[in-house]
Every structure is written in structure tokens, then in C-alpha cells.
């Protein structure tokens, strides 16, 4: 089946603006009795920030590996507990690689890493339907620099809160 891609720019621009309006707007969502009604998106955004700050959104991997190591499992244990508390939250797990591989292989490796995180969260009792995965390969490094310090931060699986399940 062929799917025509039209209005590509417009749709993406919307997606960007929706995602970029992160912290700041979330703080006013606690409802202080003012007449301004909080935007519906504010609540999940607050959860999104809370998840990053209080829970820890990422685990790290060894070079060319995709198994979640013992010390990293602790992070996912906390994530799973939090996801059980906020049972309507859905997440996307991003898999990333460092620059020490070929581009296409790194896409496949990022996919494996994202999936490894997903599998472990499922093992801890999180419903698979709440978890999506996406691989960015080496395309979205978080740390600049061409040394092991940067590479070790870039080999990561990041759990991103994408919304309330409704």
C-alpha cells in the first residue's frame, strides 16, 4: 500500500511545537485557583519532568552491547514502580548508539537497546501496550566530544513520557 506524504512540513512543525513546550508551563498546572484554565497538556508534561528528575530516564550500555547491566537494572526498577503508580502514562523508549560504528548498524543496535529496556520493563509487569520504541542510532548524541566519556553517555536507552493513556 502506498502512503502519500503530504503536508509534511506543516505536520512536523506542529509536532515540534507540541514537544518543545516543556518545563515552565508544567509548573502552573498545580491549580492555584486562578481563573486561567491549565492546558490539558500541562499535566502529562509535569509528569514528564517529574519522571526525568525524580525517577531517572536513562540507562547506559557497554560498547556494542545491548544487554541491560545489573547496575542499570536498578534505574529500570524505579521506572517500573513509577509507571505502576501512574498507570495511564505511556512511554517511548529511545535507543541510541555512540559514533564508533557504521550508521546503519547503529540504527539496528539502537533498536536492540530500546527493545532490551522495553523487555525488562515488561518483565517487571508493565503492559507492553504502554511502551513504544524508536532507534536514533548515532544521530542524536547527548554528549559532544570524541572520547570514551562522551561515547559512554551516548550509548543509552532513554524512557520518555509521551502522554497519559487517556
Amino acid at each position, binding site marked *: 500500500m502506498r502512503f502519500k506524504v503530504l503536508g509534511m512540513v506543516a505536520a512536523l512543525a506542529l509536532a515540534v511545537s507540541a514537544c518543545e513546550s516543556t518545563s515552565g508551563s508544567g509548573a502552573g498546572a498545580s491549580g492555584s485557583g486562578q481563573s486561567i484554565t491549565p492546558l490539558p497538556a500541562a499535566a502529562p508534561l509535569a509528569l514528564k519532568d517529574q519522571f526525568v528528575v525524580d525517577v531517572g530516564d536513562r540507562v547506559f550500555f557497554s560498547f556494542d552491547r545491548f544487554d541491560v547491566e545489573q547496575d542499570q537494572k536498578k534505574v529500570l526498577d524505579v521506572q517500573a514502580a513509577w509507571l505502576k503508580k501512574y498507570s495511564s502514562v505511556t512511554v517511548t523508549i529511545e535507543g541510541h548508539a555512540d559514533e564508533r560504528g557504521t550508521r546503519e548498524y547503529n540504527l539496528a543496535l539502537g533498536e536492540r537497546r530500546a527493545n532490551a529496556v522495553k523487555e525488562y520493563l515488561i518483565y517487571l509487569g508493565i503492559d507492553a501496550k504502554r511502551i513504544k520504541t524508536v532507534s536514533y542510532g548515532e544521530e542524536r548524541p547527548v554528549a559532544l*566530544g570524541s572520547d570514551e566519556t562522551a561515547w559512554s553517555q551516548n550509548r543509552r536507552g532513554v524512557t520518555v513520557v509521551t502522554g497519559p493513556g487517556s
Partner: protein
Amino acid sequence: MTIRPMIMPAKFALKTFAPLIALLAFAAALSDARPARAEITIDITRGNVEPLPIAVTDFVGKSGAAARAGREIAGVIAANLERSGLFKPIDPKAFIQSAGALNALPRFGDWRVINAQALVQGRTEVVSDGRLRVEFRLWDVFSEQQMIGLAYFTVPDNWRRVAHIISDSIYKRITGEDGYFDTRIVYVAEQPKDAKGVGRNRLNPFGKRLAIMDQDGENHRFLTDGTTLVLTPRFSPTLQEITYMSYFRNNPRVYIFNIDTGRQEVLGDFPGMTFAPRFSPDGKKIIMSMAKDGNSEIYVMDLRTRVVRQLTFHSAIDTSPSFSPDANQVVFNSDRGGSQQLYVMDDRGKNVRRISFGNGRYATPVWSPRGDLIAFTKLSGGRFFIGVMKPDGSGERLLAEDFKIEGPTWSPNGRVLIFYRKGRSEKDGSGGQSKLWSIDLTGHNEREIPTPMDASDPAWSPLIP
């Protein structure tokens, strides 16, 4: 647009018939005094050949427009031949006989004195219907023989293509192999950090977008606007379409871009990420990887029937597939043996055999259009290499090495590779520049291909039909 050559009519040759005879007689007399000389040739299979000195004279035109086109055509031809590393164009300041005077027969002695072994001359004329007529001759200066005489008609704006076609014709006549000058390169351009407009954004941190240009960097234009991350473009054999990967709507999928209409279409309806696409040699199929539940397998899709066939069934990463030119085999990389290595299978996914056995990891195999070699990226000892091996895995040769080089793509004649080279980046975000480079199969003649901004993922087109 197709430009067909016309074997040059004998008008000009007839006019100079008598002196030609005389000069040939002279040449024959000379040949008694020295060993019989074979026609000039270049063996491009040898490494580090001494470039052939060649004189490329301005093509002569009477009108201003024709004369200008003539000069530009000669310049493009000389630059093409020089970049090939096989020719050394002689500085026109050294020429004794003027281009205008070549309208009669070349005074070969004048060209021998400056050590030209080959001479290119031509004429341009805007004919009555407004088209540009370009004729050219290639002369063997020592044997005083005409090696080529051809004429082309084209719209005047198209002079650049005529220059590339003539360059290919000269290359073929002297090396015996098809040229690669009338070709394009599609690649991924990166926005500079301070770019205005769309530039870099969170979803496309380096502002990557598709760009296309002639092989010499001219006629550069962007195909996508940079809002969406795009990767790994590859040409269809017809050049009308490009297959690539896009993160449109954050769904990484393989797309097809139609160059004529600018339309982009997602390929198929797959439940997971599709990536690493390449066209089959006939352009009727796309082979690629699809990742599902963390596992990447290789699939081939018939573009007309939309039938999809899965070729690999393994828990390993199977990706970067490339068809052999006869389409009977596929080379790909897989870590099924514990580390990333090259494997070959038949077009139905059977008879899988590993072909790489050296130290290190092997990736991005690409079958040569000639079928005789497979180019690859190798990772070993923290370094990256571009190399080639025979399809049975023997005869591995490494051509280039650096901190990060990747993604070889073949010239249509299978004699030159383009790849990209990325430098180390610093903590403050400086460095990390990425540029396109070409290198001869012999390992010589490594050169940067100028691009307006950082560049990666090059793909070389076939000769333009």
C-alpha cells in the same frame, strides 16, 4: 535530456585532407628513426600511473555566446580529466599554436615541444534554431592521428553536460573503459551551527537534508528542507528516484523521492523501523532492513506488485544489503558469528556464507557495478578503513584509514570510490566536520569533493541516460 553524439561530418576533415596526408607521411618518416609507437593509452588498473600530459584548448566560437560556452566547456573538460588523476592538463599559457589557428590542422610539432601527448580541440556555434552545436576532436600528438571526432547539439544552457559527455568520451578512448563524469552525487548535507531558517532543531540536531549535485559539485541543490532527519540516500538506476530513510513524524521508515516531481512516499506499511535501503540493479525492487521487536532482518520489496519477501531469519543484526550487478546474490553485514562480518546469500536468502575473516568488524558492503569487487567499511583497533575484497572474500585491500570514514559508493565504471570522513569533535561542539572524499581503486588520488556545508552518506549515480 538525452544528448546523442553525431560522428563528425567530414567537412572539416576534407578541407584539410591534403595537409593530413603530408603530415602522415612526415610521421611515417619519423617513425623510421625511433621505435614504432603504439597509440596512447592509460592502464587504469595500475597504481600511481604518471598522468598523461594533455592539452585542452578553448573551443572556438565566433559569436560571444558561443565563444564563452567554448571556453567554459574546455575548462570543465580539463578539470574533469585532472581530477581523475590519469591526465595532466597542460597550462594553456604554454600553448604555442593558438586555439583559433587549430581550425586548420594542428601543428603537431608545436604540441610535441610542450610535451602534450594528446590534444583536445573543438568548435562551438549557436545554430539558426538557437541550439548550441559543439564539435570536438581528440588527437594523438605523436602519431598525428585523430582519435575521436564528434559533434553534439544541445540547448545552450546544457553546455555543462556536453562537457561531461566529451570528458567521458576522451576517458573511454584513452583508458578503454567507460568514464564517470556525466553523473551526479546525492548525499546528506548538514546545516552549519549558525544556519538561519530551519537550520538545526531538536528532532534533526545536525539539520540533515538531502542534496544532489553533479559529480564535480556544480548544479548543487537541496531536495528536502531540513525539518526532518534524513539518512542514507541511494539512486535508482534510472536516476529518476532516490530511496532513503526519513524520520518523518518520528517514524523511521524507508522512503522514495521522485526527483522530477519532488514527491516523497513512504515505502510499504511495515510494523517496525525500515532502513538501509538500496535499489536492485534493474530498479524494480528495493532491498532493506526492517527492525521488529529489536531484531533487524533483510527484506526485498517488489515496487510494482508490492510483494515483500523476507530473506534473513536470524536473531542477529542483519543489515546493509547490496545486490550483485546480476541481481542473483546479496551481500550484507551480520553479527550472527559474534561480531559484525560480511555474508553473501542468493536472492532468495539461501546459501548464506561468510566472506570476511580479517581482524576487526566489517560493514556497509557495496557490490561494484563491474561485479568483481565488494567495497566495505572496516573497524579495527579503534580506526575506520575503506577497503575492497573479491566476492569470495579473498584479496582484501584497504584503501583509506582514519578516525571515522564510512559508506563507500562506486563510480559507475567501478574504478573510483566516494566515501565520507568525519573528524573528531570537541566537548565545546567544535570539530567533527564531515566531508566527502574520493579515492581510486588503486588507493591513489585521494581528494576532497567540495560541498557547501558538511556532508555524509554519498551515493554515486550511474551514467545519466
